[in-house]
């Protein structure tokens, strides 16, 4: 567990690191692209190298004109072209670029000055009145004036070539680092993806482990509780047989003692013994019932039964017990028959549990109300006591096994804590509803609801059956 957390932390750190690296790469990539774009927009430096070339051409033309091979107008044109090359280097972005590259532009101004002085002489060459001899002399003068620019122009050219080369190298380096950055970015994205998948796998495995552990725990818990119940069930079975014998023996003894003896203390001792024996038997029966219910061994049969009669029977059965506690039942029923398709024995058991519970929590001399009434398509049976009530938080747990609300205060009679749980399970089995509403200190109302059989059916079909059940 500790190791997996460590791995996860390491990978998470890697992930965050990779993300930051990626962001840095993208930023760098943007810069590189900017550089390359700027390089692409820079006017080409080779334009500078055109100037010496044009100057050479001019000199060439001058020579040819001097020897009469070409008309003088050609010299004028090439003079203009050469001059335009000087102008190109002195206008727009180029002078700034040359300055940035620390290339000496002095040669340009010098050349321009010479050109300005030569201009009238060059124009003069075209004069038709000029003799060839004069023209030759003039061109020689002009050529002489243009000499001496070779070395500085070569230097200028070299500087430009060097700068141009540097710019190219820089451009190439830029492209190279751009491609590197792209490759790194790709690798980073792949790494990120890998880490992500790895983290996901770790998470999945952890989740699977947790799920397995939980399942094992749940299984353990179930089997433990089953073993517990099994143990209880076996013990209860083993207990019931001798207990029945003891209770039978006690009953016989009770009869005999009452006939022969008048010793109050002996009779009292016998009563205590048989009462506790009864309680023990009830406990044992509850445990066996609960076991049977949780194993699904309880079956129900569905017959049309008149719920009014069932309530009457259950109240009658419980009366003996309630009278001992000094509690009476007050039953209110509706005039109409309330017929439900259900198991009469189980409903009786449910009602018996609720009724005896209510009696247990009612103080001597008080009354437990029992209301039977129709609630739309349901029959609702309410059992209302004036006991200690159940607090709101306990109402949620009241139907869970082994739950007890300190019943000893009012009656001194203890129970297994299984009664309401068994009742709830029985109601679930019958497809009915059970619930409780209570105010602490004012009493509780337990209610059950069962589906009613539609009226037209019960009058014709089921009345004979009802008669039979009534005759029971």
């Amino acid at each position, binding site marked *: 567990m500790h190791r997996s957390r460590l791995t996860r932390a390491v990978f998470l750190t890697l992930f965050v690191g990779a993300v930051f690296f990626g962001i840095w790469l993208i930023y760098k990539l943007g810069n590189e692209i900017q550089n390359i774009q700027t390089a*692409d*927009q820079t*006017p080409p430096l080779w334009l500078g190298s*055109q100037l010496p070339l044009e100057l050479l051409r001019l000199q060439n033309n001058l020579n040819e004109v001097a020897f009469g091979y070409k008309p003088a107008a050609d010299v004028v044109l090439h003079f203009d*072209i050469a*001059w335009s090359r000087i*102008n*190109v280097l002195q206008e727009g972005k180029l002078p700034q670029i040359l300055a940035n590259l620390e290339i000496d532009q002095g040669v340009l101004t010098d050349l321009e000055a010479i050109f300005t002085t030569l201009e009238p002489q060059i124009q003069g060459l075209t004069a038709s009145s000029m003799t060839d001899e004069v023209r030759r002399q003039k061109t020689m003068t002009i050529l002489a004036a243009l000499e001496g620019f070779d070395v500085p122009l070569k230097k200028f050219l070299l500087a430009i070539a060097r700068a141009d080369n540097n710019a190219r190298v820089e451009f190439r380096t830029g492209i190279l680092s751009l491609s590197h950055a792209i490759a790194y970015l790709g690798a980073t994205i792949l790494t990120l993806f890998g880490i992500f998948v790895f983290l996901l796998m770790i998470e999945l495995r952890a989740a699977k482990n947790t799920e397995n552990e939980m399942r094992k725990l749940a299984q353990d818990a179930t089997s433990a509780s089953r073993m517990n119940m099994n143990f209880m069930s076996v013990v209860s079975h083993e207990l019931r047989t001798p207990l029945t014998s003891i209770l039978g023996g006690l009953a016989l003894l009770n009869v005999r003692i009452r006939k022969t003896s008048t010793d109050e203390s002996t009779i009292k001792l016998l009563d205590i013994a048989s009462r506790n024996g009864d309680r023990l038997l009830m406990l044992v029966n509850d445990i066996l019932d609960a076991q049977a219910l949780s194993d699904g061994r309880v079956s129900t049969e569905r017959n049309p039964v008149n719920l009014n009669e069932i309530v009457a029977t259950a109240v009658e059965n419980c009366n003996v017990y309630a009278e001992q506690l000094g509690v009476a039942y007050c039953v209110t029923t509706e005039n109409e028959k309330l017929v439900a398709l259900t198991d009469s024995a189980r409903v009786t058991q449910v009602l018996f549990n609720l009724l005896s519970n209510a009696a247990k929590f009612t103080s001597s001399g008080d009354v437990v109300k029992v209301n039977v009434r129709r609630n739309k398509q349901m029959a609702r049976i309410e059992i209302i006591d004036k006991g200690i009530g159940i607090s709101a938080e306990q109402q949620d747990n009241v139907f869970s096994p082994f739950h007890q609300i300190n019943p000893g205060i009012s009656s001194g009679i203890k129970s297994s804590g299984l009664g309401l749980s068994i009742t709830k399970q029985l109601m679930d089995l019958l497809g009915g509803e059970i619930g409780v509403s209570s105010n602490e200190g004012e009493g509780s109302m337990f209610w059950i609801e069962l589906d009613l059989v539609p009226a037209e059916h019960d009058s014709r079909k089921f009345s004979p059956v009802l008669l039979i059940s009534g005759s029971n």
Partner: protein
Amino acid sequence: MDIQRIMRAALASSLFVLPTFGFAQAILTVTNFETSATYTLEELLAMPQTTVVTKNDFVEDLTTFQGPSLRSVLNDIDVDRTANLKMVALNDYASKVPASDAFTYDVILAVLRDGEVMSVRDKGPIWVIYPMDDNSELQREIFNSRLVWQLKSISVE
């Protein structure tokens, strides 16, 4: 007789004037294989004019260029838009330009810069101008090399 003399004189003078006039003034030759056309500065100025106001790497500030569109010149001799053009300058510098540029953008053969004729010293008489300020995609080195100045001829390759 008089008329004959006058006619002869006129013919002689026209023969004398026309070639020099044509030779001196034709500043642009456009060739599409067998067909070709020549233009004088006046003819170029007489064509429908397009004005492009732009900056480029060879001028200091925003400059107004005026001249016929390259498109109209190409249309005159039915140049296909997929053709490749060879533009040659006075110093025989040549630049290859796809004709599609002329059909996509308002490329002009500028003959006036800020309303004035350009001298050879000042990149004249014809400077191919791309409307770079209106189309940022044109602000790249490859288009810089297509700004042919001192343009002499255009031929289809």
